[in-house]
């Protein structure tokens, strides 16, 4: 199996905001294989992405390839991502796959499904610590989704249909 793991220590994800502000997130490591690049974050490094205040609406979906209801609803997130302009809505898919399965499961899945939304891996084993910081109501089951813009934020521990997801998104736009 072809394998190329890059450990560059610092992977900078640039999130441009109307060309003005630039925001950097430090990845703990970056995994690449078959042309797919997956930055890996611990929660401390991921957290700023859940708290951006730049007028853009963000949909952050926690999922994993082993989670059937997550995989079932991914096309709806992809559709939202393609239908709404990038400067208004950003879809971020936070994978909770085990790091040992990134190459065997996650990357082939991303490639096969031709996923275009931003994907990153959250690798932070001390889940009791960070689950509460995502939302105090979250029990830790996935799929779970945050839709937020500036200071308003809604959290959902549930699955969506396309219409349901779009309805919730429109509340935030």
């Amino acid at each position, binding site marked *: 199996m072809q394998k190329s793991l890059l450990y560059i220590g610092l992977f900078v994800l640039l999130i441009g905001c109307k060309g003005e502000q630039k925001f950097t997130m430090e990845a703990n490591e970056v995994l690449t294989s078959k042309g797919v690049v997956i930055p890996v974050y611990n929660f401390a490094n991921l957290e700023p992405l859940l708290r951006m205040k730049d007028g853009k609406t963000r949909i952050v979906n926690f999922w994993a390839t*082993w*989670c*059937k209801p997550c995989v079932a609803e991914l096309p709806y997130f992809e559709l939202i991502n393609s239908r709404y302009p990038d400067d208004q809505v950003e879809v971020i898919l936070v994978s909770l796959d*085990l*790091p040992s399965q990134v190459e065997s499961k996650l990357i082939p899945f991303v490639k096969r499904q031709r996923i275009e939304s931003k994907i990153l891996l959250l690798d932070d*084993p001390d*889940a*009791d610590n960070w689950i509460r910081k995502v939302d105090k109501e979250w*029990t*830790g089951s996935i799929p779970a989704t945050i839709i937020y813009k500036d200071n308003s934020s809604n959290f959902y521990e549930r699955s969506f249909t396309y219409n349901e997801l779009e309805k919730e998104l429109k509340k935030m736009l």
Partner: protein
Amino acid sequence: MKTLKILVVIALVIAVSAFAIDRVSDQAVSDTGYAVGDIATDFSLKNVDDTMVSLSDYKDTKGFVVIFTCNHCPYSVAYEDRIIALNASLAPKGYPVIAINPNNPKAYPEDSFEHMKIRAKDKGFTFPYLFDEGQKIYPQYGATKTPHVYVLEKTTEGLVVRYIGAIDNNYKDAKKADKKYVENAVSELLSGKKVSVETTKAIGCSIKA
């Protein structure tokens, strides 16, 4: 006059149906399962050796470590060896592990009773691995994912829930787990103390009924 009567009837119907909706949502709220301090239900579920197992079968235990787990979930698999180790260390102290697979095999064929038997044999499970047939027990406990642990203490009042949550704080690497929630809870119970960490959260695979 007639129209007024109809209006009254309609108003009554609306009032009654509104009340019915309230009742339903009340029930839904109380249906979220156990909190620490609640009395847990016993059950009679089929074990991988084809016998039926109830908590009341255990006469000499001080409590139980009830773990909702399954075959298909990578997080459950990551904890399998640790569940075996927990039973080895805690069963002699009076807190045996009781594993329950809450998933509907129609949603996850890998979690069928036949596959449970195979997994239990392959891994050499030393504890009951029970099938929640009809998915009736896990909602009473309020388990939402696998693995999801309930530490129960046997008291004169019944089986009191003393801890709900994860096994430890590192699903990836047992050696790096420096908070062993279940072990700590049981050892505190054994020394007559209050459990210091009563609930924890963890990522797991959603249970599918």
